[in-house]
């Protein structure tokens, strides 16, 4: 047997409530390095809350979050990003930049030119800037947005804006990637494109946690599915196993969402 390796992400008894609402309640699971796990559950199940706790935008009331071996529970969001965590939010606003420059923001995590270098521009700054541009272009090609590189980002339709936020997070070169409904509102062709992107990323060894409602999409990309209902984990298994699970069916019937 292989020696036990450290999971890429560990959630340890994490709880978070908003007033009387227990959005996430005593939740524990871990993601081994590599692979795509889908997080599903009815509306208000606590999926976004969990992802925000992992990324550092919400503080858990209790519990611990580990990135590899590091306990990052008290870390700020940007420090987690520098440590290899990427996140795509459910809603995103476009900056007043063009698509390429917006994607280049993603490269912030692995580059280092600061205010002074930006002003003085030593030769290494130019080289770094070229690497940033190349990486951003590559990320745009991956999601199929390279033709819009020079368009203003705030003029993009919603679907393309999603693709842009995915390109940006790819330019960040994360080890663990959290995606909150990245394909919601996308057209079938765009969904298919992203399916390929996620497939390639999985091959490349990235660890992904993806929130999605569309079970067909989940079935085609996920290695593993974790189901949340009212803040609690109610199922954890392969897509086929989860689809048969009675508690899952019950939870979804309760909200009248079709599986």
């Amino acid at each position, binding site marked *: 047997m292989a020696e036990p390796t450290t999971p890429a992400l560990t959630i340890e008894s994490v709880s978070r409530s908003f007033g009387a609402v227990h959005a996430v309640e005593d939740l524990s699971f871990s993601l081994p390095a590599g692979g795509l796990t889908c997080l599903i559950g009815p509306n208000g199940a606590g999926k976004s809350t969990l992802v925000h706790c992992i990324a550092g935008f919400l503080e858990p009331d209790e519990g611990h979050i580990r990135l590899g071996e590091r306990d990052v529970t008290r870390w700020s969001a940007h420090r987690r*990003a520098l440590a290899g965590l990427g996140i795509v939010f459910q809603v995103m606003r476009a*900056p007043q930049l063009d698509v390429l420059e917006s994607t*280049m*923001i993603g490269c912030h995590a692995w*580059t280092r*030119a600061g205010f002074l270098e930006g002003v003085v521009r030593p030769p290494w700054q130019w080289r770094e*800037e070229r690497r940033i541009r190349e990486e951003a272009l590559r990320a745009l090609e991956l999601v199929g947005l390279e033709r819009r590189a020079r368009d203003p980002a705030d003029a993009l339709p919603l679907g393309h804006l999603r693709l842009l936020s995915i390109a*940006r997070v790819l330019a960040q070169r994360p080890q663990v990637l959290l995606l909150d409904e990245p394909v919601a509102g996308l057209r079938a062709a765009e969904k298919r494109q992203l399916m390929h992107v996620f497939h390639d990323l999985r091959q490349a060894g990235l660890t992904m946690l993806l929130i999605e409602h569309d079970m067909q999409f989940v079935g085609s990309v996920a290695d593993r599915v974790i189901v949340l209902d009212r803040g609690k984990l109610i199922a954890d298994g392969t897509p086929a196993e989860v689809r048969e699970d009675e508690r899952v069916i019950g939870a979804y019937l309760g909200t009248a969402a079709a599986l």
Partner: protein
Amino acid sequence: MSRGGRLPGLLRLAGTLAAGAFAIWLGYQLGPGDRSLYTLMGLYAIVAIGLSLLMGFAGQISLGQGAFYALGAYTAGILTVGLDPDDRFLPEAGIDPALAVVAAPLLTGLVAAVIGVPLLRLRGHYLAFATLALHLILLAVIFAQSRFTGGQDPGLAVIEPLEVFGWQITGVTGGTARHTAIVWGLVLVTLLVALNLVGSRAGRALQAIATSERTAAAAGVNVSAYKLRLFVLSASLAGLAGALYAFMLQFLSPDAFGVFLSIQFVVMVAVGGLGSIYGAVVGAVAITWLEHELRELGTRPSLLGFDLPDQAPQVFSVGVFAVILIVVILFFPRGLLPALGDGMRRLRPARDES
């Protein structure tokens, strides 16, 4: 911002340098009266560029730039005449004015770094009000510590001329042409610094912050540190301009640094266009000129048959700037200059394609 009329970088740089050379040359061509107004335009342009970075690129509104300008002026003035009010009649009581001009922006930046930590936790209107309060507090201190600052009466006379390597730069009322040229040279340098910053990794991070602090942090940007650094930079620029102002008039009084000044800086940036560094310079020149004209108008004994009261200059300025600000915010949210550019661009393709 690199959107829109995308001139090749080198061409744009050449154009900027040429415009800067012209601005410096103009300093030598003007008579003493026009020259002091022109110098003031340059000083305000330096402040406006800093504020434009803060407002237009990082989305942080400061109504306290006038306070940093005043702080720079008083720092330079007091360092030059001597810290101890009882020693000020002695020669050698203060430091070399040239050193004071260097020390003023450093101290102003330091103050901004200290107060910026709690202040920048505030957002939007709260930050605007807090920085405005900062300006009021500074004015109160200048009045209260009149032993050091001279207060309103007698004010602070900074008669020591500014000299660099034996070159006299100020010491003549209204400043010398050399002073004007140096000020506009600094405008050019500030402009290049700001343009470089905006187009760099740090500049992109700042623009990410302006859109969404959450998204910026998710990309690994240390949001509070970046905001603080930019706040310090913009405060230092205001401090530098203030220090150069101290030697232009050779006299400091809180009257020159009213709260209205801070509002004026915001109007300059809004008129020039949020997110346009060049616009900040144009806005500074236009608003400074307008303010000057309005004051001339207001100090007339009568206008259109009406006797004008003593407060007329201030009332005119406040009224006109309030209207400008409202019109810009309502109809040209991106600023007057970018709106003008859009209008021209709309005209041009029609001709090109025919």
